[in-house]
């Protein structure tokens, strides 16, 4: 690696941190056409085939079956508004390589922030120790790039978006929140953007590169009435171009946040106990993610610790229910051109008309089950090894209308907004927090409710979804973070309005 390529990184890094980019040559052209996306790490850091071959050989030096290199260069920026002014900025430059050696189901992992040959070889040496024999030294040949689509094209790299343009977006949202309701007393706004470039090089011949953008504009609104205070938050974004932030999108953000804060003055806690629950469309997909999705991640099943590990091919839901985990939807937070093992992004049917048809796989679990990887191998950063993770998880629409679903419930709970879901993988028991909802009385939506927890059991809940309507909506935020094994990755989710026959609603009344 030459000093020149390292120097040019310095400019990119510093500029990225500052959101004022002096772009490397070759990226000055507008947009990120595919030809400009490839060769980034070779151009900027001197990562060529010879070096990759050398590092992979070291990683396999003690007899590992398989090894891969994951290079990452990410520029993250956040602008924050408090008390009416965009008066703080946070920036972050992340650069490094993660090196993994796999032996059977076992993983050796090392990483380095320094992309010199010596530092990478040292990390590869650590990874290699998962095996303890002699180097198989399989000759490493040429590499092929997988077939890729671009599901999140940019007309401008985020580094090219002037800080002033971002600042105006946050300021506009702030001013519009105050204008929308006289009850608003405080507004906290922020805009986040993350431009991550990755390169995956594997010992079995894959070399894949991607530019994965993520942005969101978020706002939290505090309102006050008769000495009582309430707060609500919302965000909109995804893997999107900055052109996404139109006046209409900003208006939707403001309306959602302000109206949700103000309605809470009318809200109360519902009675505790078991009752039918109607999940409204969109963000309630978190429930699908928590209650059902995690248990279908293949690592938990390979280790036989998931409640779903004996259910493949079995009926797990009514025929109305089809559940998809999908990297191919454009611009959502969980959309991917490739996963972090270089497998092309794809659409995976988890439950097909009620039958459990597939788990979500990374390379290790796919080999274990003798199936093709599904492109679910993801990681938080080069400092972490890959695990099977969800992308955009949703249920296909069904034949009912939302009105029919609500009308079918004499007394129950309608859920509009949820947060903080969690599941015990082995039992499938889950809990999640309802921040906005309504009581259903006599088949009609009545009083608003808030601050209540819903508990259930994933397989039981899945089996008790009896109505699915035609209004599938995907969550349009960019801030959906899923945590597993200490790693956070961004995910998307969605749901049509559905009826769950019975769930436990927490409350403070006996």
């Amino acid at each position, binding site marked *: 690696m030459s000093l020149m390529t390292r120097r040019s990184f310095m400019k990119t890094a510093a500029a990225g941190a500052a959101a004022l980019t002096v772009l490397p040559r070759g990226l000055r052209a507008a947009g990120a056409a595919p030809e400009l996306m490839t060769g980034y790490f070779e151009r900027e850091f001197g990562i060529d085939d010879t070096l990759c071959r050398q590092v992979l050989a070291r990683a396999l030096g003690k007899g590992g079956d398989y090894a891969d290199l994951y290079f990452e260069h990410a520029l993250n920026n956040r602008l924050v508004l408090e008390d009416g002014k965009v008066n703080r900025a946070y920036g972050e430059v992340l650069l490094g390589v993660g090196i993994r050696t796999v032996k059977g189901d076992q993983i050796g992992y090392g990483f380095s922030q320094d992309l010199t040959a010596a530092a990478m070889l040292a990390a590869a040496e650590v990874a290699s120790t998962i095996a303890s024999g002699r180097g198989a030294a399989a000759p490493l040949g040429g590499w092929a790039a997988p077939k890729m689509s671009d599901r999140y094209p940019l007309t401008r790299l985020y580094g090219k978006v002037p800080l002033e343009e971002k600042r105006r977006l946050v300021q506009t949202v702030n001013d519009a929140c105050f204008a929308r309701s006289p009850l608003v007393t405080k507004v906290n706004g922020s805009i986040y953007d993350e431009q991550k470039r990755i390169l995956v090089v594997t010992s079995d011949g894959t070399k894949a590169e991607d530019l994965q953008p993520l942005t969101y504009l978020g706002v939290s609104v505090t309102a006050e009435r008769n000495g009582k205070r309430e707060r609500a938050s919302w965000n909109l974004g995804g893997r999107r171009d900055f052109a996404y932030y139109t006046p209409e999108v900003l208006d939707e953000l403001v309306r959602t946040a302000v109206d949700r804060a103000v309605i809470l003055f009318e809200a109360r806690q519902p009675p505790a106990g078991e009752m039918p629950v109607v999940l409204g469309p969109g963000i309630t997909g978190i429930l699908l993610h928590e209650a059902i999705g995690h248990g279908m991640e293949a690592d938990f099943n390979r280790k036989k610790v998931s409640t779903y590990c004996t259910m493949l091919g079995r009926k797990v839901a009514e025929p109305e229910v089809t559940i998809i985990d999908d990297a191919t939807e454009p611009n959502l937070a969980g959309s991917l051109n490739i996963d972090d093992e270089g497998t092309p992004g794809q659409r995976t049917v988890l439950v097909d008309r009620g039958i459990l048809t597939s788990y979500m796989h990374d390379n290790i679990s796919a080999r274990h089950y003798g199936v093709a990887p599904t492109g679910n191998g993801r990681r938080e950063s080069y400092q972490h090894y890959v695990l099977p993770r969800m992308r955009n998880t949703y249920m296909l629409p069904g034949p009912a209308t939302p009105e029919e679903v609500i009308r079918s419930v004499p007394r129950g709970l309608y859920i509009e907004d949820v947060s903080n879901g969690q599941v015990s993988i082995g039992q499938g028991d889950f809990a*999640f927090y309802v921040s906005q909802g309504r009581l259903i009385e006599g088949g009609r939506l009545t009083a608003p409710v808030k601050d209540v927890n819903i508990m259930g059991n994933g397989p039981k809940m899945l089996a008790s979804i009896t109505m699915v309507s035609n209004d599938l909506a995907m969550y349009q935020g960019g801030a959906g973070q899923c945590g597993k094994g200490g790693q956070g990755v961004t995910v998307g989710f969605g749901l049509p309005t559905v009826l769950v026959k019975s769930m436990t609603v927490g409350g403070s009344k006996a």
Partner: protein
Amino acid sequence: MNREMFDLAFQTLEMAKTAGADQCRVAINRDRSVEISYRDHQVETIKEAGTRGLFLEVFVNNRYSSQYTSDLRPAELKGFVVQAIATTRLLEEDPFRTLPDPRYYEGRAPVDLKRSDPAFSSLSTEQMHEIARDVGEAAQAKAGPRMISVTSSCAKSWSENVRLSSNGFEGGEENTCFSSGASISLQDEGDRRPCGDHFAEVSTRAELPPAEAIGAEAAQRSLDLLGAKKVKTETLPVIVENRSVPRLLGGLVAAMSGASLQQKQSFLMGKKGQAIASERFTLVDDPFIPGGFGSRLFDGDGFPARRRMMVDAGVLRDYYISWYYSRKLGCEPTSGGASNLVIAPGSRSVAEIMKSLGRGVLVREFIGGNSNSTTGDMSVGIVGTLFANGVPTQPIAEMNIAANHLQLWSRVAEVANDPWLYSSRRTPSVVFRDVVVSGI
């Protein structure tokens, strides 16, 4: 203090001042960690690496930004610094944004916090393999025939940081951490495969309990989950086990921060000097616990650490006010965040308390849920067991408790004598009376 890191921090400060910063603060961190895990008698993962990074905060004409980079070579740093300042200039003015008045830096306690153990380097990878394996085997021996899978681990980490400010603050820390634990999946009725775990985490290697004890406790905690079910909604005394108390306490402490007060997002606004909890509840912020994960000599602003009475026999005595929010609120700063939080322990064990309570619920874990710092309303799922006359009678799951923090903490009936030692939250088990535990 590491000389090389100190020099680099000093040079970065000089660069920032030359580039136009009125004031600046630099922190440089380095760390190294090794993690080994076993699953069912076989190595599952080996991970080892080191990181380093530099945080730069700049103040230019009352404008502020904070930037991070992992590229620490001086030539590269210079460009990073120049761009950080250029960005800051484009922000809006915030007259409250300055470094603290340096007189607030004075008075650091001359205490050895015992946060760094030289045994970090002498604990070999082979020994770590042995610990991880032994923990797993002990867990399996105790778990018996229902065991499906056991994952056990041993990890160690070391970190060092140096912090300097342009108005005279200097500080450095070196910390070590050793941890070991296991999680065990068991076959229960039908498709239920409950998984319990236990992890110990300490600053000094000698304090790590024997592998056999860690494994056996992890297994017992898993066995205790067998047969769990939802039972009918009832108002009962609830004992929240020591390790789970921080989850509840977090909702109370979040409302004590200057940011939530100034942003009107705190249910504790205007409550200083008033009773917010039962007189049996006393909460102390103690930065001087030897080996405590929150122990420190100075805080994020550089203020010398002090022991603070936060809640004294139920009365709210203090807030967490950083320099910045002290200026916004027009009050004296305290400290921007908690160090070690200690709930004053009582005299009886959980077993004794269970015996004297008659019927009740012992909460072992929380699941999901949330706490609203603006209103104080919280709701959270629970896993644990019903007990009668001191004996566990029925493990429970899929149940919930919901309350307002002010109501919940006013119902503290007793605090047990068992502070949790593996966290900066030194919380004993806490008994709450008259809690609605909702289920069927």
